[in-house]
C-alpha cells in the first residue's frame, strides 16, 4: 500500500474596495443598475486610454507587505489576450513576468501547529464584466444568448498565488481563512466569498510520500466558501489517489466543483491549451516603487492577525478567546484599552468573547452600539478581585452595563448583586448559624470537617446568596478551632 501526500497551491483573487475602477473614473458600485458604471475606457471604445488608480497600487502594496513580500522596484503591466464576452478589450490588463510583489509567505495555525505557506507572487489586474443568463433574470431560459453587465469590468483585482506548500484540505482552508483575515485587517477589501470579492482556485495533485517530483495536477474551480474549498480538496485528493491506485493516470485539466453532489467534474476541454500571448501593455508606463514608498507602506500596516494572536496569548488570554478577538477588531480594541488600564487579561478576554459576544448576538447589535467602556471592564475586574462581586454576579452586572444601566458599581448596588465579603459583616451571621447547630460545631471541633459545607450553605441561605462563600468558610474554620 502506498502512502500518498497531497500537494496543493491556491490562487486567490481579491477585489479592492477603491472608490473608482482600476483604469478609469467609473465608480466601483455593485448596487448600481446594470451598465450604468461604464465609460469609454472600461468598455474598450476606440482611442480610450487607461490610467492606473494610485489607491489600488497602494492597496496591493499593503497586501504584498503584509505577506512579507519583496515589493519589486521596477514592474510592468502586460496584456493577457483571450476572447470572452465579459472581457470588452479582448485582453485583460494584468502583470506577467515582473509583478509588483514576490516571494512572500503566510504563517498559518492548523490545530495548534504552525505551518509556513510560501507566496510566489501578488499581482495587479482588472476584473471582468458579469454574464447574466436568461434564467437568472427570470426570463425564459435562452440557450443562444448571454446578457452582459460591465459595471464590474475594470474593478481593481489582486491575484495572490501560493507556492505548492499546502499538504491537506485542513491547511488549504486555514490558509484561505488566514489570508482573508489579513486582507480584511488591511481595510483594502471586504473579502466576502459569498459576494465574490474573494475567490479561489486550487491546483491539486498527489504523490507517493517521499517522492520529490510533483504528480500531474488538476485545477479545481467554483468553490464559493471555505467549507467548499475543504470539501473539494478532500474529494479531489481521494479521486486522484483512487485513480492512481487503480492503475490510471491523472489528466491535467480544469475541474468544476459541484456543491450539491460533492464532486468535481472535468470541464469540456478546449481544442488547444491556453495561449495568452502576453505582451507589455504599451498604453501604460512602468511602475516604480522606491525605498521611500516601500517604507511608507510598511509604516502604514496595522497589527496583523498572527502578531495579535501571539500578543494576546503572551498577555495570558486563552486560545479560543484570542482567536475570537483576532476575528473581531472592535473586541480586540476594547480588550487593549481595558488591559492598558491594568485589567486582568484572561478575565477580560473571557468576558469579551463570552458574555459580551453572546449579548451582541442575542440583541443583534455591534459592540459600538452598547454602553460598554474599557473602564467598566477594569472596574468589574477590581470588584471581583476585592470580593465585592461573585464571578457569577459579575456576568449579570456585565449584562446590565451593556444594556446601558450604568457603571458596574452602581449597577451591582441597584440590582442588589454585591457580595458580602467583609468578615465583620459576616461574623454575626456565622455566630448565629453555629449557635443554631451546636452538634455540627461539636463535630468540627472533633476534627470532622465534612459538615462545613452544610454550615456555609446555611449562611448563604440566611444572606440570600450574597455572602462570599470563601470568607464564610474560613470564618467557620477559625471558630471551630476555638476562635
Amino acid at each position, binding site marked *: 500500500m502506498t502512502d500518498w501526500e497531497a500537494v496543493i497551491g491556491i490562487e486567490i483573487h481579491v477585489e479592492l474596495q477603491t472608490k*473608482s475602477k482600476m483604469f478609469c473614473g467609473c465608480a466601483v458600485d455593485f448596487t448600481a443598475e446594470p451598465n450604468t458604471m461604464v465609460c469609454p475606457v472600461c468598455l474598450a471604445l476606440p482611442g480610450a486610454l487607461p490610467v*492606473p488608480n494610485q489607491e489600488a497600487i497602494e492597496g496591493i502594496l499593503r497586501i504584498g507587505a503584509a505577506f512579507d513580500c519583496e515589493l519589486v522596484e521596477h514592474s510592468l503591466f502586460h496584456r493577457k489576450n483571450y476572447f470572452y464576452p465579459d472581457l470588452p478589450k479582448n485582453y485583460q490588463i494584468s502583470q506577467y513576468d515582473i509583478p509588483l510583489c514576490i516571494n512572500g509567505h503566510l504563517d498559518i495555525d492548523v490545530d495548534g501547529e504552525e505551518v509556513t505557506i510560501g507566496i510566489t507572487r501578488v499581482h495587479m489586474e482588472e476584473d471582468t464584466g458579469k454574464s447574466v443568463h436568461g434564467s437568472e433574470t427570470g426570463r425564459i431560459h435562452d440557450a443562444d444568448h448571454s446578457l*452582459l453587465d460591465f459595471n464590474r469590468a475594470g474593478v481593481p483585482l489582486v491575484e495572490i498565488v501560493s507556492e505548492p506548500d499546502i499538504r491537506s484540505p485542513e491547511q488549504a482552508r486555514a490558509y484561505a481563512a488566514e489570508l482573508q483575515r489579513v486582507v480584511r485587517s488591511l481595510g483594502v477589501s471586504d473579502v466576502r466569498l459569498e459576494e465574490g470579492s474573494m475567490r479561489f482556485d486550487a491546483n491539486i495533485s498527489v504523490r507517493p510520500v517521499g517522492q520529490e517530483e510533483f504528480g500531474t495536477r488538476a485545477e479545481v474551480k467554483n468553490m464559493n466558501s471555505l467549507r467548499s474549498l475543504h470539501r473539494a480538496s478532500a474529494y479531489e485528493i481521494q479521486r486522484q489517489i483512487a485513480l492512481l491506485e487503480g492503475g490510471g493516470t491523472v489528466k491535467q485539466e480544469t475541474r468544476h466543483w459541484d456543491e450539491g453532489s460533492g464532486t468535481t467534474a472535468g470541464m469540456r476541454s478546449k481544442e488547444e491549451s491556453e495561449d495568452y500571448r502576453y505582451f507589455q501593455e504599451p498604453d501604460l*508606463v512602468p511602475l516604480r516603487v522606491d525605498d521611500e514608498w516601500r517604507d511608507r507602506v510598511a509604516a502604514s500596516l496595522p497589527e496583523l492577525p498572527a502578531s495579535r494572536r501571539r500578543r494576546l496569548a503572551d498577555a495570558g488570554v486563552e486560545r479560543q478567546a484570542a482567536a475570537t478577538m483576532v476575528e473581531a477588531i472592535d473586541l480586540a480594541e476594547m480588550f487593549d484599552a481595558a488591559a492598558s488600564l491594568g485589567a486582568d487579561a484572561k478575565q477580560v478576554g473571557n468576558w469579551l468573547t463570552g458574555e459580551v459576544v453572546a449579548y451582541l448576538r442575542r440583541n443583534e447589535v455591534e459592540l459600538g452600539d452598547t454602553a460598554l467602556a474599557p473602564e467598566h471592564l477594569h472596574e468589574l475586574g477590581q470588584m471581583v478581585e476585592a470580593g465585592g462581586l461573585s464571578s457569577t454576579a459579575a456576568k449579570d452586572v456585565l449584562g446590565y452595563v451593556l444594556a446601558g444601566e450604568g457603571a458596574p458599581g452602581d449597577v451591582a448596588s441597584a440590582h442588589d448583586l454585591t457580595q458580602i465579603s467583609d468578615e465583620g459583616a459576616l461574623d454575626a451571621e456565622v455566630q448565629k448559624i453555629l449557635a443554631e447547630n451546636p452538634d455540627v460545631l461539636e463535630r468540627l471541633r472533633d476534627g470532622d470537617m465534612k459538615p462545613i459545607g452544610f454550615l456555609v450553605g446555611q449562611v448563604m441561605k440566611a444572606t440570600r446568596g450574597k455572602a462570599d462563600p470563601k470568607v464564610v468558610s474560613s470564618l467557620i474554620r477559625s471558630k471551630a478551632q476555638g476562635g
Partner: protein
Amino acid sequence: MPVEIDIAKVAKLARLALSEEELVGYGAQLVDILEHAERVGALPTDGVTPTSHPLPMTNAFRLDEVRPSLDRDEVLEQAPQRDGEFFRVPRILGES
C-alpha cells in the same frame, strides 16, 4: 536562421478566418517582421539599459476619484444587440 511560424494557429488565436491564400501571404509578411526583430536582437547591447516603454517616465497615476459614467441608453444604442439594460451576445460554446 530561418524563422518558422504556424500562421494558421496565430490566425485562430486572433479569431481571424483567413483563406489559404491569405495564410500564405500574411505568413510571409509575419516571417519578414520576425526576421527583422531577430536582426535587431542580434545587435550588441551590452551596457544598454533595457527599457520597456519609449517614454522615460514611471508611475503615471490618477487619484482615486469617481468621474461621471456614460448614459446607459447612449451606450447600449451602440451595441450590435441589446436586451433591456444589458448587452446581448451569442452564448459561448462550453459555457454552462
